[in-house]
């Protein structure tokens, strides 16, 4: 048993770290650190660096232009990106559609789309959830009816992250309405966002932000060539993606970032004339979080290491997802607590790059309440923690 990285892994980490230090612009890091709104151009700037370095498809096998990294390397890469303050890599094309096309796509689809993903020429959106079919994908209603060389798509998708930036979308649609089981009649379809009949409407989150959307489809004609895999094979594809190796699911890197920020804030904030970090109650809250994170980091590495030995993490991913979101949410809870009354002021304009106003309280206080509320989503999306517990109960506990 050896809990530290090998020499090779350390060398890899240093390489990633050095590259990030050199190439990632201070402007972007600054925006990420201040929780400012990232524009499409910001993401494109970041993606371009990855393309240039050959790390855009960091999840893919070498033969398709990917890195061929081990799970441990992928883990290191994720940690370093977060630690450096990089924006996230928009996953829909490179981490979701890419693996699907590699596994299920036609040669023509691979030849056309994979290079475009590798070079960040497309912005893909994901069309899975529907109103009334969030965790329960099998009940989705958006229909695709064959008409000549096209499918005609009607229906509605929701929670479509950054669809207003996307030029393409992949969707699960119902092609077999009479299939004996609801999950048997689903297909996986690629579309262009500017196809007539597609309309994107913003959903405003509880903080008043626009990050997700509803996408409406009315008589949208999609060429049959845009079907991935067989007709009615969509469920198999969706499940393949769900089980696809997810090293970052625990969000350890994010939580470490938060914890570091929290400790600094607690050193700065005063309580009765002393640093808040010295208050026994607050110190205990931080320490409990820190211990949970310490344990989770090892837990996460155990699953990553097992994946490196070819053991696909199944329900362990669910355990990590649950604990990971608890830790991330707790970190944001402590941050909002830390700043006391200054958690309350809300200046939406302060999250635009141009803003150079003065915060009412300390600068770091402004995004904290927003961060706390925003982070509630992590235990809901990607299969709520309740769904994750159901999965574990079934697959690990045998209920």
């Amino acid at each position, binding site marked *: 048993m050896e809990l530290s990285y090998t020499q090779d892994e350390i060398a890899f980490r240093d390489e990633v770290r050095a590259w990030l230090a050199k190439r990632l612009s201070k402007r972007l890091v600054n925006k990420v650190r201040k929780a400012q709104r990232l524009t499409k151009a910001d993401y494109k700037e970041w993606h371009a660096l990855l393309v240039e370095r050959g790390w855009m498809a960091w999840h893919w096998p070498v033969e398709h232009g990917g890195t061929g990294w081990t799970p441990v390397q992928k883990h290191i890469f994720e940690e370093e990106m977060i630690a450096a303050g990089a924006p996230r890599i928009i996953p829909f094309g490179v981490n979701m559609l890419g693996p699907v096309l590699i596994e299920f796509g036609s040669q023509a689809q691979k030849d056309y789309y994979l290079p475009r993903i590798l070079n960040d020429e497309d912005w893909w959106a994901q069309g899975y959830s529907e109103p009334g079919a969030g965790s329960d994908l099998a009940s989705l209603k958006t229909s695709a009816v064959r008409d000549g060389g096209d499918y005609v798509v009607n229906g509605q998708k929701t929670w479509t992250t950054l669809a207003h930036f996307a030029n393409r979308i992949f969707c699960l649609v119902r092609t077999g309405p009479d299939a004996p089981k609801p999950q048997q009649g689903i297909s996986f379809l690629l579309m262009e966002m500017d196809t007539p009949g597609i309309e994107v409407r913003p959903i405003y989150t*509880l903080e008043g932000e626009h990050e997700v959307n509803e996408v409406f489809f009315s008589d949208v004609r999609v060429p049959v060539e845009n079907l991935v895999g067989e007709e009615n094979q969509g469920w198999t594809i969706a499940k393949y993606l769900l089980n696809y190796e997810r090293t970052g699911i625990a969000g350890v890197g994010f939580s470490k970032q938060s914890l570091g920020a929290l400790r600094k804030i607690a050193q700065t904030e005063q309580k009765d*004339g002393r640093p808040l970090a010295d208050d026994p*109650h607050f110190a205990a809250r931080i320490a409990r979080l820190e211990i949970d994170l310490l344990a989770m980091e090892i837990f996460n590495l155990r699953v990553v290491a097992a994946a490196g030995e070819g053991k696909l993490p199944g329900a362990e991913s669910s355990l990590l997802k649950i604990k990971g979101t608890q830790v991330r949410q707790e970190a944001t809870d402590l941050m909002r607590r830390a700043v006391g*009354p*200054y958690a*309350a002021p809300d200046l939406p304009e302060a999250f635009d790059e141009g803003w150079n106003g003065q915060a009412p*309280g300390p600068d770091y206080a402004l995004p904290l*309440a927003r961060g706390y509320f925003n982070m509630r*989503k992590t235990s809901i999306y990607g299969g709520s923690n309740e769904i994750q517990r159901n999965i574990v109960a079934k697959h690990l506990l045998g209920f």
Partner: protein
Amino acid sequence: MDFNLSDERRMLQETARRMIRETYPIEKRHDFARSEKGFSADIWRDFAELGLVGALLPAQAGGYGGTGEDIALVFEEVGRGLVVEPFLATAILGAWPLCEAGGAEAGDAGTLEAVIEGRHLLALAHGEPGSRYSLAQVKTQATESGGIWRISGVKSVVLNGDTADDLIVSARIAGAAEAQDGLALFRVDPKDEGVARRSYALIDGGAAADITLGEAIGTPIGAPGEAYPVIERTIARAALAAAAQALGAMEAAKDLTLDFLKTRTQFGKPIGANQVLQHRMVDMLIEIEQLRSCVMLAASTLEAGRETRERNVSAAKHLAGRVGRQVAEEVIQMHGGVGMTWELAAPHYAKRIVMIDHLFGDTDHHLERFIHFSKGAA
């Protein structure tokens, strides 16, 4: 022993509840909350006309209530309706120092009459950068010269500070920065040239301001140097009001969630068919009932001696924070994705419930305060 409301209070409760329900749908609330003022002046006058402001103030101030029970009752409805009008700022934080220290003076009586009629708004400028939830930590200085008091300092997150017609400002005339002795309260005209206000919205709706005082002229309220007990009692009232408001918001949020669980289906059955959600709803219900009990207790002892009052108010405010986090997070979680959207009312309740923990001391602060005031009871 009698847990029933008197007929008068029951009527007050019904009036408040009906008016808020009928005139205060969530869309209008958002309009008020996001307006420049952070509330609706028209609705405020309607509330005042119905007597909801007067109910929070005692007879000697021209009101017709003002007991802990009245405060708890009105603010429970304020919380239930997610109301953003300045009940806390004007009727509790602003008016009570006047009631206590200067209620008998003609000038203040006129002010209070106008307050009760909804014509005059107040704000308490007490907290300062770095003072966190401490009541005595005041660095703002007041000095007298030739019978004129001048005040200099910075006040932060003053609820409804931008729209107040009068500011009630705490300042130090003597003593160390955290001493209870040496504090004074002043009435300051916000149009005084020494007053600079900077307003901003609050994340759960409404507005507050940071206020910089540079030699601003103030009129003393009560005896300068002896204001701490008035501040402490005022904040006790405000903390009780906040706890009651949290209680009302939790009840409403719990009802919305229950309704959602029963109507929204997943995997072919109502979400509420999941036993885990049922049990978690039961746990919420228990804690809400606990909070209700604690608010009742604090309300019934608000006029008791200092130790009892502070201990019970801190118990209620501690519990409001502790239970509040549980309820707010469950409300969002049980709603799933739509619980994260602006469109539904439930997440706005969640925001309000959580942010109440940042008013007048959070759950940790009040646990410590409870411990402090329990020493005698051991």
